[in-house]
């Protein structure tokens, strides 16, 4: 019997020459989708994508195929960087706002990049993956809140505004939903 083939991330960790290109080809769409949703402008998304792939090269050795999927790991690394970038932008905006208050001028608002929304019938479209089943098992409100945070990159305050929910409720839904998905993924991991 042939031994199992290395995953792409494992090949990167081993320094295989052609793995980097393959990584960009295979995960480019996923990273780009996330970057566009989490970035205020296309130029910011382009910068973010580069930084994410640099991060992936550095962290590929941490991928453990028994703990999750490659797509999930790549999305995790991408989101980590995108959240960091978003928080830095927010800090700069806050500084600019304070400066503007002092000078009596308004700072430029950011213009969100136009990206397609998640399908309304997402539950039906989810495939049979473990994560998809875990998402489908959530209550509708929990699922919506969780997707707005993980996919669209909205903050709790932004989700509260969009969903017209109290901030505390949004936090509860998000945390409960994520812990539920983690628990279901862990159960599946144990079974497998």
């Amino acid at each position, binding site marked *: 019997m042939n031994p199992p083939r290395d995953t792409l991330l494992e090949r990167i960790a081993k320094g295989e020459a052609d793995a980097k290109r393959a990584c960009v080809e295979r995960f480019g769409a996923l990273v780009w989708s996330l970057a566009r949703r989490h970035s205020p402008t296309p130029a910011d998304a382009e910068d973010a994508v580069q930084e994410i792939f640099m991060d992936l090269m550095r962290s590929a050795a941490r991928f453990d195929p028994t703990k999750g999927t490659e797509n999930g790991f790549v999305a995790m690394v991408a989101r980590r960087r995108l959240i960091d970038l978003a928080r830095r932008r927010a800090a700069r905006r806050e500084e600019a706002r304070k400066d503007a208050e002092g000078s009596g001028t308004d700072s430029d608002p950011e213009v969100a990049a136009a990206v397609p929304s998640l399908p309304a019938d997402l539950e039906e479209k989810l495939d049979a993956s473990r994560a998809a089943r875990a998402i489908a098992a959530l209550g509708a409100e929990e699922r919506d809140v969780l997707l707005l945070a993980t996919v669209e990159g909205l*903050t709790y305050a932004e989700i509260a505004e969009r969903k017209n929910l109290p901030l505390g409720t949004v936090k509860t839904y998000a945390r409960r939903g994520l812990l539920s998905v983690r628990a279901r993924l862990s159960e599946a991991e144990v079974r497998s």
Partner: protein
Amino acid sequence: MSAARPERWEELACDAALVGLDEAERAELAALAVPDDDLLAIELAAGEIAAAALATVSDDASLPPMLGAAIVARLGPAPAGPPPARADGVARRAPKASPAWLPWALAAAAAILAVYGWTRPRPEATAPPAPSRDPEPVASIDAGRDTFAERAALLARPGAAELPWKATKDEAAKAASGEVVWHAELQRGFMRFRGLAPNDPTKAQYQLWIFDAERDDAYPVDGGVFDVGPGGEVVVPIEAKLKVGRAKLFAVTVEKPGGVVVSKRERIVLTAAPSG
């Protein structure tokens, strides 16, 4: 999973994975000494959710091919070039006497358009610059290498072109002059600068861009990141990350440490085009 109310570390771990933490929250989470695996499991769950949800979206979300190519080029080592030109016994050749100037001359009009198009501020370039990141390996002036002699040798080879730099109004270029030497067949080149302002590599670096008539102007070829120290004349080898088919414009920008894949074009310092 915990009961109805998560433990504090779970709340913080969820917030970290979903929206990030501020300094005080990070310190609080660190003080709880949660095993890395537990934190990673929550963060990975958020990644799995995002990946599964995005798999349902059928849109034109493919990474732009030129951006992908630029990233691949930056991730990997620079392509192995031909052996360095030898300086021994080769006389300097007057570039204008070379037939190699013909394609450059033909590209002049396109280059002018490219300069115009590229120097126009991009609508999306008004956002604040991205934060700096860990510097990547850069092309810099190698003290142990006689770049002056290599440049002279390359310039002497048939097919080499020499293009003078044209300074913009950027402060760094106030006293700058020099030229680019580029050999299309050998895919090698050098930049010579006089009077270009020294940079602090921890704050900003210079980056060369090569516009290729055979590529989209939105994604010029990254020609390498470099530093300029105090002093007189410097010669910097060009480190093109991709093959350049027909160079029509060279441009030097000021970027964050380590350079960028796609320039926001906020500070263009020098340009050189075949039209002169």
